């Protein structure tokens, strides 16, 4: 029986020690094979020795373990019940490698009684828990790592959700054919379409028909490329509105986690619209410049850069476009006499925060050396602080206008002098409305002041003397009714408010509509009373002078004719009819008569007064 136990003890798979409580400690009475294997000690080093002798307690670990063991043994002795020592660490030296190995154990102390029921021995067995501890530790480590990874993943997910849901970008995964596999939550905020609505949909079905072909062509290149960018295209939103998107495409078909093409679309509708507006604005500028022939400019005062718009002419002032676009072009071509003043005006206007407009006129040198007259009108744009940052304006070539104005001034000056000299009254008759507008000369000429616009019928005709009135009305209206006539001229008398007659020459130019109907007539009335009176007097005087001349011609010529007749007698045979002395006396008488007549004429001529 004893052998049986011994054999059983010896062959226990666990390391086992039979301990005997003795004075001063525990003595090792027996050790099984496993124990020897585990500890690597020999029989003589263990059996019969006290535990504290065998285990030197050189390390804190050994001290702790021995303490626990002794406490447990003491507990077994006093309670006479088995006791377990929970898992503890006790490293052992590997006899094969010579290295200390980390080992974990569970121990059990079981009392073995003597016949008197007292605890005689204590069977101490240890179970190697190292594998379990290591397993547990690994499990815990894995669990920890998993937990950390889960946490990380959760964070990432949250971050991703935050990024994707709140982002302006639309993220999706497509297969190589463009079918949706995934769409981010941001599709709701961007397109108003929930992600699930994209299931089993093809992306190209949402693209504008005009853009579809191009986008498909660009997208198809992703089969050969890792990444590409698709130029802006129109994409239909939940309301059927076309929105512009720019898309980055990444090929992740080979990535097992994705197995698709990742698209990242950014809405660029505003940008496109702004670009369109900008383009339209640019075109509008160009058109405006083309239509008006003006040069429109946009001067960034901060960077001192100028953008100029003009397409009205091939060349402006004879210069090529690139010449005009030069930054210093303006400063170098403004007339030297005006440059300094122009600078001062500009500086003053820009510095005055209340000014929002500037208007200048100056001359600029053309390519052929002549100068063009310009009028420059600009709007000053200011920042919040009132500083001028931009000047946008238009420059018009008013050379023709200036030349015409100068010519007009000259003509006006001449006209004024002419008006003063001729006493002519200008009138403008709006035939359609029926009133006539007369110049200021009217009062001066006729002593009548007209405040309101008067009519021809009830104002002018009434002033024509009765004997002329019907003739003038008839002549005027007949001329107006004849579409082939554009001029009218009549002479007639009018009554002045002072009761006197004025003799006038009235001339008008008729303006007709396309149908030939007279719509307007502009003319001038000339008071020729004085000249008529003068002419009448001159005619009268001429008549008188003529009569005088006639009479005198006969009187003067009479003695001459007689003289010549008498002298001719000397060529004839006058004997029998005339005596020579008689002829000579008649000649003498005639000569004296002639002398008297000539003397009388001279005296008479001296007496004639020329009427002024």
């Amino acid at each position, binding site marked *: 029986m004893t052998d049986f136990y011994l054999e059983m003890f010896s062959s226990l798979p666990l390391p086992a020690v039979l301990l005997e409580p003795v004075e001063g400690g525990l003595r090792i009475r027996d050790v099984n094979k496993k124990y020897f294997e585990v500890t690597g000690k020999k029989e003589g080093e263990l059996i019969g020795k006290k535990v504290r002798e065998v285990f030197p307690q050189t390390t804190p670990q050994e001290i702790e373990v021995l303490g626990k063991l002794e406490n447990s043994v003491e507990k077994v002795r006093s309670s006479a019940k088995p006791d377990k020592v929970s898992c503890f660490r006790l490293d052992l030296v590997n006899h094969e490698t010579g290295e200390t190995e980390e080992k974990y154990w569970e121990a059990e102390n079981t009392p073995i009684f003597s016949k008197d029921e007292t605890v005689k021995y204590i069977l101490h067995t240890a179970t190697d828990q190292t594998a379990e501890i290591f397993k547990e530790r690994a499990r815990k480590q894995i669990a920890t790592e998993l937990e950390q990874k889960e946490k990380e993943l959760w964070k990432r997910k949250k971050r991703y959700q935050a990024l994707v849901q709140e982002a302006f970008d639309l993220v999706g995964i497509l297969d190589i054919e463009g079918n949706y596999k995934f769409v981010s939550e941001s599709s709701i905020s961007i397109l108003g379409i929930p992600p699930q609505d994209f299931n089993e949909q093809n992306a190209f079905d949402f693209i504008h028909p005009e853009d579809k072909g191009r986008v498909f062509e660009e997208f198809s290149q992703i089969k050969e490329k890792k990444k590409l960018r698709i130029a802006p295209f129109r994409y239909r939103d939940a309301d059927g509105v076309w929105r512009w998107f720019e898309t980055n495409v990444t090929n992740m078909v080979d990535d097992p986690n994705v197995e698709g093409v990742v698209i990242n679309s950014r809405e660029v509708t505003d940008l496109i619209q702004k670009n369109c507006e900008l383009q339209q604005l640019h075109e509008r500028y160009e058109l405006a410049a083309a239509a008006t022939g003006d040069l429109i400019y946009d001067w960034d005062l901060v960077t001192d850069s100028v953008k100029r718009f003009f397409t009205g002419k091939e060349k402006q002032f004879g210069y090529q476009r690139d010449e005009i676009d030069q930054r210093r072009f303006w400063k170098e071509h403004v007339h030297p006499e005006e440059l300094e003043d122009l600078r001062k005006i500009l500086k003053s206007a820009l510095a005055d925060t209340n000014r929002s407009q500037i208007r200048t006129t100056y001359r600029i040198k053309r390519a052929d050396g002549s100068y063009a007259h310009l009028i420059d009108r600009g709007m000053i744009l200011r920042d919040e602080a009132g500083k001028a940052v931009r000047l946008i304006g238009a420059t018009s070539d008013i050379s023709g206008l200036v030349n015409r104005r100068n010519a007009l001034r000259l003509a006006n000056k001449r006209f004024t002098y002419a008006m003063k000299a001729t006493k002519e009254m200008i009138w403008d008759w709006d035939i359609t409305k029926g009133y006539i507008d007369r110049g200021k000369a009217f009062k001066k000429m006729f002593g009548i002041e007209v405040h309101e616009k008067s009519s021809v019928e009830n104002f002018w005709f009434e002033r024509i003397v009765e004997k002329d009135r019907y003739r003038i009305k008839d002549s005027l209206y007949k001329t107006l009714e004849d579409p082939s006539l554009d001029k009218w001229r009549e002479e007639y008398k009018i009554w002045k408010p002072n009761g006197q007659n004025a003799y006038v020459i009235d001339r008008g130019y008729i303006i007709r509509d396309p149908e030939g109907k007279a719509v307007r007539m502009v003319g001038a009335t000339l008071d020729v009373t004085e000249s008529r009176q003068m002419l009448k007097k001159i005619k009268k005087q001429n008549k008188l002078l003529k009569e005088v001349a*006639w*009479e005198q011609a*006969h009187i003067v010529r*009479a003695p001459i004719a*007689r003289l010549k*007749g008498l002298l001719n*007698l000397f060529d*004839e045979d006058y004997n029998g*009819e005339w005596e020579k002395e008689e002829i000579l006396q008649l000649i003498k008488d005639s000569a004296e008569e002639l002398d008297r007549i000539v003397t009388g004429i001279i005296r008479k001529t001296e007496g004639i007064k020329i009427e002024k």
Partner: protein
Amino acid sequence: MKNSSSQILIAEDDQVVARIQKFLLEKAVSLSPVMCKNGREALEFLERNAGDSEKILVILDLNMPEMNGWDFLEACKDSTYAEKVNVVVVTSSLFWEDEEKAASYQQVIGYYTKPITPSVLQDILQLPEVYGYFEPVLKSR
């Protein structure tokens, strides 16, 4: 009987001129002209004698007292004898207007300025209206 049915009448207020004209006429034609001091005398003569005459040549001055040459022409033009009377104006006037005015009268066949010369007188007598009515004076005489 040219001379018996034709008459030459000189209407001239200047007696010296009238005498010269008469002298030259008598040297050229074989009849004596009738002398009148103004248009009235000439007109009265015509009134009395025109009926007996086939042709009457009037040498007419324009500027005369009582009745001038123009008034004579006016009175004569509508007379019953108007067709018989041919007038040659001989005036001291150089006015072109006078010549033009004179030409407007049907009876006026010539216009000459004083003084007339023998050659002018020959021109007058050669005028178609009076040519052959007045017998010239024979040279031998």
